[in-house]
């Protein structure tokens, strides 16, 4: 579980990669984002939350109130600062970002990433600590917020730009490039309600990045677009990265590893690790793997009376390139002919990266009690943690016999491929100079 992780606090400069240091001069006035011991509490219970909201507002309006919670600004706030029913949505988070730096935020849902971004964007007030933002802040916490479905794309561009603080003149000059970037020219004069969600995201991203921000806050907004558009977005992010400070939330770990110069792993509002992107991703993956056993779901045919996977906990560690055997024990009332049988390897981003197809080798599930072992000769996958989906369907290809989602975990060791699960064998590289 997460508690096994040790919070590591390293001085940031030590972790900045040489590449980013070369791009961005480290002058102190270039610190664009300065976050000091920021905490924010939330309340799960709606009724209570509203009541606390009223109290907070009254506190804020009371001219004799000297502080609305800053009594614990310097030290880390503790449980006594919470009212009944409250929890820390963000707890004692600190970091600094300079121009040219990019911070990746990693953490599972509810870790406090979006809350932190909202505090950074000045939408909500921290309960303790302080934040200083310098320069123009572009935030994509939700794309398309403020899009009016009945108005056309063009009308919405002007409205959204006004909301984001871009002047009409600036937009007039850029409207064509915005439309081209979003690639919706034939739709631009139709109502936004006729747009697909991907088109809305494209339009929103195009508008927000047109403003040339000093600080760019990107909540997980690119998840909606298709791969081609994502590539386009990452190209644009990459091209403005050296001129601004970026705070970036994404579940696309390979892009994060490439773009971010540092990363922070968050859990329950706390910073568990802040340092190199690779280390943050590793810690996150390890934590995810340790807890993802709970996601195990199993569907079996009515005739199957019992089913168990053997030797599956704790996750087996397999050397990349070596073999793996999955053993199952089951009891069936009758013989069940098998049509399709396979094991899928799913990575932490929920992408199926490999499949072992046993359809031709597994003829049937025999009647009575039996033990089944399925061997994969070579697990040619990159280092990392994969969950296995086991699926066995009947000979009519429709009936489910056994379907276990995330039924087992495999920890593949020893082959650190970059951003891919499978590495192809290489041939030669040949360069012929046509004209020097």
């Amino acid at each position, binding site marked *: 579980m997460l508690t096994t992780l040790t919070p590591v606090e390293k001085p940031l400069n030590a972790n900045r990669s040489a590449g980013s240091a070369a791009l961005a001069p480290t002058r102190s006035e270039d610190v664009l984002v300065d976050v000091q011991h920021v905490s924010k509490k939330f309340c799960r219970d709606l009724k209570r939350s*509203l009541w606390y909201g009223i109290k907070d507002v009254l506190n804020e309006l009371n001219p004799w109130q000297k502080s609305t919670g800053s009594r614990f600004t310097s030290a880390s706030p503790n449980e006594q600062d919470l009212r009944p029913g409250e929890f820390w949505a963000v707890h004692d988070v600190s970091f600094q970002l300079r121009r040219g730096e990019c911070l990746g935020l990693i953490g599972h849902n509810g870790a406090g990433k979006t809350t932190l971004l909202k505090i950074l964007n000045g939408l909500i007030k921290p309960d303790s600590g302080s934040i200083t933002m310098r320069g123009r*802040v572009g935030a994509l916490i939700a794309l398309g*917020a403020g899009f009016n479905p*009945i108005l056309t794309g063009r009308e919405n561009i002007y409205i959204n730009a006004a909301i984001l603080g871009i002047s009409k003149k600036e937009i007039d000059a850029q409207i064509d490039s915005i439309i081209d970037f979003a690639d919706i020219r034939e739709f631009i004069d139709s109502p936004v309600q006729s747009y697909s969600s991907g088109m809305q995201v494209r339009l929103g991203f195009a508008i927000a990045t047109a403003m040339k921000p000093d600080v760019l806050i990107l909540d997980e907004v690119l998840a909606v677009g298709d791969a081609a558009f994502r590539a386009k977005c990452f190209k644009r992010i990459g091209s403005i990265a050296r001129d601004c400070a970026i705070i970036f939330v994404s579940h696309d770990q390979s892009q994060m590893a490439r773009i971010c110069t540092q990363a922070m792993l968050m859990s329950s509002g706390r910073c568990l690790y802040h340092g190199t992107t690779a280390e943050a991703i590793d810690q996150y993956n390890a934590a995810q793997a340790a807890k993802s056993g709970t996601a195990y779901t199993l569907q079996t045919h009515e005739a199957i009376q019992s089913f168990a996977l053997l030797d599956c906990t704790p996750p087996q560690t397999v050397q990349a390139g070596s073999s793996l055997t999955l053993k199952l024990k089951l009891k069936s009332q009758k013989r069940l002919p098998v049509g399709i049988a396979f094991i899928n390897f799913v990575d932490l981003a929920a992408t199926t990266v490999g499949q072992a197809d046993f359809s031709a080798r597994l003829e049937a599930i025999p009647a009575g009690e039996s033990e089944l072992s399925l061997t994969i000769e070579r697990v040619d996958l990159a280092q990392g943690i994969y969950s296995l989906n086991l699926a066995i369907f009947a000979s009519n290809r429709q009936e489910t016999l056994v379907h276990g989602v995330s039924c087992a975990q495999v920890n593949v060791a020893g082959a650190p491929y970059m951003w891919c699960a499978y590495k192809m064998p290489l041939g030669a590289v040949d360069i012929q100079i046509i004209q020097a």
Partner: protein
Amino acid sequence: MELCERTYSPEPLLGSPLKLIKALGTDLLAGRELAWRLFMRDLSAQYRQTYFGYVWAFLPPLVASLTFIFLNSQGIVAIDTGAVPYAAFAMMGTLLWQVFVDAVTAPVQTLSAAKPMLSKINFPREAILLAGFYMVLFNFAVRMVLLVGVMLWWHVPVGLGLAFFPVALAGLLLSGTAIGLALAPIGTLYGDISKSIPIFAQFLMLLTPVVYPARTEGLAGLLATWNPISPLIVTARETLSGQDLTLLLPFSIITLVSLLVTFAGLIAFRLAMPHLIARMGG
């Protein structure tokens, strides 16, 4: 280029009032263009998915006037309103009352509608209030066209007092806005406010000389004197129908107080907003 710098901390902003007022002014200026766009958006979106379009803007007051014309022609209502025919008197009253109620409702209503935007984008939020205010003005302007027709139809006498009408109208709008702004922080959190406004408005309308002239005696007289809305409605109607302004002093006091409350309300809105957004979720 000098970069603007913003600091967010739990310190109460009331601690530095000058900075606060300056920021309010900056945001109101910066929000003007946005407010206009939001207003135009709401306006054009309002009737776009309808067949009759802007006809719908005129219909409610038109139907209301027809009701009064009917009641008057059948002699069902017989209230002595002096030189002004009753139908015109009642029409003026209800239209002015509606402006007041619109102004009260606008802040809570526009804020609730803007929740998705508020919880995700940082922008001069005063623009939302301003856009709501524009909408109140627009709706009034639409009704004004009808009112002019009604006044011509019934030959309502018009005097020099008409020049004072914009001031009277401003008083009505200001007092409505003041109440609306005071309700906004609670109304954004609790739906009870927006549910109770129409009910209270209906009740309050009967306690205010809207469809009857202000009395001087009895309970109705007491209410007319101590109900802060009465002088506003009465004065506004008197300027329209060329009568003497009988309640000028209370009108001035109430307008002045409304002005102060509106200003305080704008500051309170600014201070309360981050706390309200924190409770909006999303």
